[in-house]
């Protein structure tokens, strides 16, 4: 059950592009044609599925506070979490290189399809972001980490596929000249993000309190908190208004 929940949550609610803006650079640069967008999207799913579980293992057995205890009880007080960034990015860069070599050897067809995109991916924020969010959200098991890698990759894939299709069509529309290209892409992405926000109540059946406590974990914590403040404010204003109307009556 928690697998299914995490799967849909990562694709729709915490979509990498629309909720956290990860991998925006390549999203904007490579979304001019559907065919190339599919290639890059597939490469992202692939690399996320490899690096997130790998970095989960690194985090669990090397980086976390007290993670080195398997070496012996005297290592229990070590906390190497400040090395997170350098270790994660090194893993990603190496894995991308490795994956490239292996794919080239065993599946030339796939290599030709992904070929030019693989090196690009080493510096794609979506990949490092996937690992960092995995750490920040404290995903408990290796299986869930694998699930998280694949499903957030699928979310990214969906997003780039959608925008590429829209951009192919929008070439025939009469967009105001200064907005053409980059500007309109930003605005369309914004509108799509608004659309994706409607998935927010999907897992909780629209129960906002439960949703805030569940999704409001580290990532969107800031915004959810602000939203809660905001809604408290509106509640207050509403009650103030009620009082006013009451007194008038």
């Amino acid at each position: 059950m928690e697998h299914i929940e995490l799967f849909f949550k990562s694709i729709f609610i915490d979509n990498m592009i629309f909720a956290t803006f990860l991998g925006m650079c390549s999203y904007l640069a490579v979304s001019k044609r559907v065919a190339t967008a599919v290639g890059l999207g597939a490469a992202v799913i692939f690399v996320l599925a490899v690096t997130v579980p790998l970095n989960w293992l690194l985090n669990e057995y090397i980086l976390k506070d007290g993670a080195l205890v398997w070496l012996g009880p005297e290592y229990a007080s070590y906390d190497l979490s400040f090395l997170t960034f350098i270790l994660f990015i090194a893993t990603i860069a190496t894995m991308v290189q490795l994956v490239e070599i292996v794919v080239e050897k065993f599946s030339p067809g796939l290599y030709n399809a992904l070929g030019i995109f693989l090196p690009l991916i080493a510096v794609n924020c979506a990949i490092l972001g996937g690992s960092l969010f995995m750490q920040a959200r404290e995903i408990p098991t290796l299986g869930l980490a694998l699930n998280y890698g694949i499903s957030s990759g699928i979310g990214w894939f969906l997003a780039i596929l959608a925008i590429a299709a829209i951009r192919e069509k929008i070439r025939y529309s009469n967009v105001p000249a200064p907005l053409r290209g980059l500007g309109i892409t930003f605005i369309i992405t914004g509108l799509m993000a608004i659309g994706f926000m409607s998935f927010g109540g999907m897992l909780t059946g629209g129960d906002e309190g439960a949703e805030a406590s569940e999704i409001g974990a580290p990532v969107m914590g800031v915004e959810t908190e602000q939203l809660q403040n905001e809604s408290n404010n509106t509640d207050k204003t509403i009650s103030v208004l009620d009082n006013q109307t009451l007194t008038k009556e």
Partner: protein
Amino acid sequence: MALLSRKERNLVLDPLTDDNPITVQVLGICSALAITAELKASVVMAVSVIAVLAVGNVVISLLRNVIPNKIRIIVQLVVIAALVILVDLILKAFAFELSKQLSVFIGLIITNCIIMGRFEAFALGNNPWHSFLDGIGNAGGYGLILIIVGFFRELLGFGTLFGYKVLGDPIEKTGLYALGYENNGFMVLSPMALIVIGIIIWVQRIKNKELIED
């Protein structure tokens, strides 16, 4: 500005407007958008990126004749990661609340395309002083957009700037709120960051026709 020659001045000033990393070069959008709901976070992020890019550019420029061409990406990543760890630890030490709020986005400076992009395009082929200026200019242009977006989102979304209630108090009904003004809670949500940047691009391209794409 007698200290700087014309070329050096252009290195700093161009990226602020006509060659802006975000709106023209399309670099570094990833980490730019998610943290702009409040002005304070935007300013901290801008300062962090300026520090990382300026120092990183100098380091790479000093090493440019020693780095073997084939492994330069890895070398660059190590330099950036080391600098970002420093920034992260400094923030944790002196501004813990803020560093919690920025969460993973400080770490994502590593994969911020501006930094790799400037290393590749500039620092590898220029002397340290010019690289330093280029770093300041480009990170400054990035910071400028961040601060503009943060300004509008916080002002319209919360009615505050740096946490000060500049438009009056929404609960006490003072200032603008007495006239029936309401905060637009939508500005705080993530989609509006994209739309605000879209509008900035629009305005910039109306002013400078050369940037218009076909």
